[in-house]
């Protein structure tokens, strides 16, 4: 039984960069699944059907359309089995997704059934299936609904016991869990673990972690490594609930352990993560954090306050606004792992229970990136910033509806009885932040929300961008408004980013710049040792204009670096 490599390393950076294991570094996995890249590549083709690739990557023209051609990639031997990659090959769903082109906002598509299957399905992706009636009369109908979901996650034990499924209750999915188990164990038995396969327009990716097998099933065209990152995150959530040693002990005592019992109540957290992945999260895509933009002097005033009121048993202290970090206080020798922070943010802002209670919370949790063997204790207290006007019309889970205006103070200690100590620290912190004006600065910044692209770079052609500072393991982005208002539009934007990200990071590509042209968008990915920048503009924007836009974003970041990123934070 191999221990997952999630133990933290001592670093001085705020965060440790790679949360996920990069599957592409593993040649064996490629051999075992020759067709592993088929789906995402096919979708690359259809989604950006009219790309005119251009590359500036020094000789190797791997950014062009040809870079997707089988001959350039040894992994693509299986391609011929599925026929030629051509535009006609597009799945109806993805053809539909890219069908809306001649509009002002091509990413905003109408959600009428039959017109645009994936977009329509996405609206219903998070609807509850309900359960099979006692007489089984509605089973077939539920199964149809279940199959229509764009994305599934299964977690099962090595002995095949179901642990988690995002959609459908046990009765409905037991057959499918059984099939998954059979397939996985067949390859494991042959000492050639299955990493993934494709069936129709659906990509299956498997991840084995000690006593657990995790499966992602996606029709959204994500790459294997992206899906694997998502599975890693679900696995980290399970460790966060149980800790690795206690989970391993359960299974070594009784291999047929039903893990659902000890995990009871964790479904909401797993659902929150899963739905976040389905909606598409820049944070997960980039394995980076986003910070609230504040002036440098304001942020250092907040940092100083945190250090002033720090209580002796504090390990980490965070001020978090709407999923964005305002400030962090931490010991010099311990960084914060982005994967751990993602779990915390998910618990606070996606799963409703912590916030809904209206009180203060004391939560035991394991931060697997920090140390997967033991529990820490987290004090959480929420503040409202008193703005309820900004409601999104999309069909998000109600729990996350108000997350844009929530401010949380999170104090983490290894002392299980530290509640009142940390509560006292919270009170002092709030009092001092109120007194020195920082609280109202934070609230104002939260209320202002993200700046739009044109606020950042006046007159720019860019509609959206993601900028990741590699050294800080943080990213920044403008508002999704006005071009990417709906959930579907955002999902498409994230899919585009995911493809840019994949093309820059794929094992064989040594790209520095990638320029993509499609009917509905033009896009540019640009990587340097310092940063990764992904930008998207409307259709028919010429390359030079796009590049100019990108340059101006980089100039803006250079000016604003200490505002949009937390450099160092409060360290003790």
């Amino acid at each position, binding site marked *: 039984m191999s221990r997952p490599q999630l133990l933290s390393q001592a670093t001085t950076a705020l965060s440790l960069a790679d949360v996920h294991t990069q599957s592409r570094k593993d040649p064996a996995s490629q051999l075992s699944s020759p067709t592993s890249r088929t789906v995402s590549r096919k979708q690359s083709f259809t989604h950006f059907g009219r790309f005119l690739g251009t590359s500036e990557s020094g000789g190797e023209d791997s950014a062009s359309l040809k870079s997707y051609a089988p001959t350039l990639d040894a992994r693509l031997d299986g391609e011929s089995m599925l026929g030629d990659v051509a535009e006609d090959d597009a799945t109806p769903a993805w053809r539909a997704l890219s069908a809306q082109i001649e509009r002002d906002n091509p990413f905003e598509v109408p959600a009428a059934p039959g017109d645009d299957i994936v977009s329509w399905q996405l609206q219903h992706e998070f609807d509850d299936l309900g359960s099979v009636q006692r007489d089984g009369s509605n089973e077939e109908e539920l199964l149809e609904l279940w199959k229509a979901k764009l994305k599934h996650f299964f977690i099962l034990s090595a002995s095949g016991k179901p642990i988690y499924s995002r959609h459908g209750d046990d009765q409905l999915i037991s057959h499918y869990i059984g099939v998954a188990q059979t397939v996985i164990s067949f390859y494991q038995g042959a000492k050639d673990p299955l990493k993934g396969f494709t069936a129709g327009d659906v990509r299956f990716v498997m991840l084995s972690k000690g006593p657990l097998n995790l499966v992602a099933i996606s029709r959204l065209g994500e790459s294997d490594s992206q899906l694997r990152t998502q599975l890693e995150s679900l696995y980290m959530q399970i460790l966060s*609930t*149980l800790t690795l040693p206690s989970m391993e002990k359960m299974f070594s005592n009784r291999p047929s352990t039903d893990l659902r*019992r*000890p995990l*009871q*109540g964790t479904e*909401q*957290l797993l659902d929150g993560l899963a739905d976040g992945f389905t909606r598409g999260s820049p944070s997960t895509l980039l394995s980076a954090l986003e910070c609230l933009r504040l002036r440098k002097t304001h942020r250092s005033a907040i940092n100083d306050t945190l250090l002033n009121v720090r209580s002796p048993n504090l390990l980490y202290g965070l001020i978090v606004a709407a999923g964005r970090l305002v400030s962090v206080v931490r010991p010099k020798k311990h960084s914060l792992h982005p994967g751990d922070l993602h779990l915390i943010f998910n*618990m606070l802002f996606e*799963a*409703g*229970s*912590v916030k*809904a*209670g*209206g*009180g*203060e*919370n*004391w*939560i*035991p*949790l394991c931060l697997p990136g920090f140390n997967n063997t033991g529990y820490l204790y*987290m004090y959480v207290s929420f503040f409202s910033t008193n703005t309820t006007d900004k409601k999104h019309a999309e069909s998000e889970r109600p*729990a996350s509806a108000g997350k844009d205006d929530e401010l949380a103070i999170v104090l983490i200690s290894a*002392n*299980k*009885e*530290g*509640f*009142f*100590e940390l*509560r*006292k620290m919270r*009170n*002092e912190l*709030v*009092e001092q932040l109120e007194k020195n004006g920082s609280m109202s600065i934070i609230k104002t910044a939260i209320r202002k929300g993200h700046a739009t692209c044109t606020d950042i770079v006046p007159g720019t052609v860019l509609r959206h961008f993601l900028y990741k500072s590699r050294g800080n393991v943080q990213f920044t982005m403008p508002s999704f408004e006005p071009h990417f208002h709906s959930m579907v539009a955002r999902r498409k934007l994230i899919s585009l980013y995911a493809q840019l990200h994949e093309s820059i990071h794929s094992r064989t590509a040594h790209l520095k710049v990638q320029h993509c042209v499609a009917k509905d968008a033009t896009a540019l990915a640009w990587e340097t040792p310092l940063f990764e920048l992904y930008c998207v503009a409307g259709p028919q924007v010429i390359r030079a204009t796009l590049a100019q836009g990108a340059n101006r974003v980089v100039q803006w970041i250079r000016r604003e670096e200490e505002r949009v990123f937390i450099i160092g934070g409060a360290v003790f």
Partner: protein
Amino acid sequence: MADSSQASAPKPSSSVKLVLLGEAAVGKSSLVLRFVNNDFHPNKEPTIGAAFLTQKCHLPSRTIKFEIWDTAGQERFASLAPMYYRNAQAALVVYDVTKASSLVKAKHWVAELQRQASPGIVIALVGNKVDLCEEDGAGDTSQGGEGGEGPAVEGGEEEDDAVARKVGFKEAKAYADEESLLFFETSAKTGHNVSEVFTAIANAIPETSLKGARGAAAAAGGGGTQAAISGGAGQESSRVNLNARGEGKAQEGCAC
């Protein structure tokens, strides 16, 4: 930053540490939410760890400030429970009247409290979700046991009761009497009997326990960790403990 109500209300005010225990999904958090905010969320997600809330309860002679630990019911949090019931002056052990196993779990909690919690702890047994048992459950039980449940036999389901009911009023009441527990059937959804539970607890807390709580806690507490927990338990402005006084000031601040 309203300080504790000494100025506005001349009545003596004291803090009572109260813990809620019971199986997962019986409605502990919903009872607290009803009591504290007079609110109800139909699909409340499970509590993680524990939540801390405060609420005042005004009695004719005094004001009780409840400091409530709403614990998560899942098995894996059970080992943390002693931290919450230690030094508690009151406990609400909750079960779900539509789920027989939840009463079994409740009995385990009662036994554990009697064994391990402070000797004077006031325990209330609460059967929640009576709204699922049609009107008769709610109507009858509001009398606090006097109302007839008809030909109910202990342990059995009453035939004219709703199908949903799995724990008979009499059965639970008999058990509560045997163990000298307060007993109520409630509905966090409708609010039925919720404030009555807390008022009854407030009334049942002996005066001596209020005065002596601090001393008892200090005596029992073996070390700093104990003090950290008890520090929030019984803050009163008449405190003489210097150490606690500073804490108390800060805590009163935004507890509500």
